[in-house]
């Protein structure tokens, strides 16, 4: 199991889980705000649509669907 945090909330997921799957599984549906402030979450699940962008360990605009969870990861929705 892997322990990570999203917006300060701790979550524990199975090894190999993507960040997108971890967040959705924990009930986080709003990953980012669109340019006009609408809530957005993952759409394509395969790294094309860019809707699942979150900040991971301080680096912005990371694709949650293409990033496997790692222990100690700090994820921030935007």
């Amino acid at each position, binding site marked *: 199991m892997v322990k990570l945090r999203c917006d300060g909330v701790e979550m524990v997921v199975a090894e190999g889980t993507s960040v997108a799957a971890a967040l959705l599984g924990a009930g986080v549906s709003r990953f980012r705000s669109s*340019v006009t402030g609408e809530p957005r979450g993952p759409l394509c699940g395969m790294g094309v649509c860019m809707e699942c*962008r979150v900040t991971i360990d301080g*680096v*912005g*605009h990371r694709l949650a669907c293409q990033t496997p969870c790692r222990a100690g990861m700090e994820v921030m929705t935007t």
Partner: protein
Amino acid sequence: MTPSPDVMIVGAGIVGAACAYELARAGARVEVIDSGLPGGGATAAGMGHLVVLDDNEAELTLTKYSVGLWHSLAKELPAAAEFWGCGTVWVAADEVEMAGARAKLSVYRQHGLAAELLDERQLYEAEPNLRAGLAGGLLVNGDAMVYAPVATRFLLEQSKAKVTRAAVTSLDDLKAGAVVCATGAMAPALVPGLRVRPRKGYLAITDRYPGFARHPLVELGYLQSAHGDSNESVAFNVQPRPTGQLLIGSSRQYEDATASLLEPMLERAFAYMPGLRACSVIRTWTGFRASTPDKLPMIGRLRDRVYLATGHEGLGVTTSLGTAKILAALILGYAPPIPAWPYRVERFDG
């Protein structure tokens, strides 16, 4: 058959559009022709920085006059033109450049332009993502930014000019009282021998990083890059869009140069703003500026009924409105609002 227009403008970039706008306001019947989309050439390739430059008196006069015109136009522009009175921060790397900033300040003040010197601390307060160890800078308050393709379309719509999408192969075939060639770096194709050379520039744009940069940031050495005649040069020039996206420039090279300047341009930007390294670049592109030997535009009569408005180098968006005022006066026969002789077409003859 419709009667031929008073003025036919070849080129629907920001300069051609501004000329259409100004001539129509002065009562002329105007048409515009371009093989591409309005505002789709160098106008779309640039940053949209509206900046007063002081390399020489003629440049200062035209840029100052034009930036003033942009401020007057701002309230009429549609929101999508993203006019932003953000000012410019000229960055001084060391004490030598800081002396340059002080000199610049005094020139701007003499010309009635608002500007303030920033010491090292004030520079970081204004722009915390600049690297440590810079000497300071100069904030020029009146500079601005605009999204030029939308401004171009606005000017064309206001002019009510008929815009035709077609290629022009000869200026002499066009039926009109006067013909204006405003095709930027492509002008020599219609005016053989014209002293305008395409000068390539690279740009990159990032995803959104709101607040990462708050003003257009330009190194004080920029004028050296822009106005020197070296075959290849780069300068630190990073500009935030109102959305938080960052435009990363700038580079200049003549058409016979082949090496990519993207890499040195980015290196230069990273040297001033190390945090840019990690920023996600979503697109890169190149465009061609219309460069003249003295880096001033050519505005005026070429021969009989043919006029030129080209050669604006990197200042086409900034000086488009001032160019149009001068050209309209020359075509319609009244006194130009600022002296037109520094930009006369025949200055390179003989």
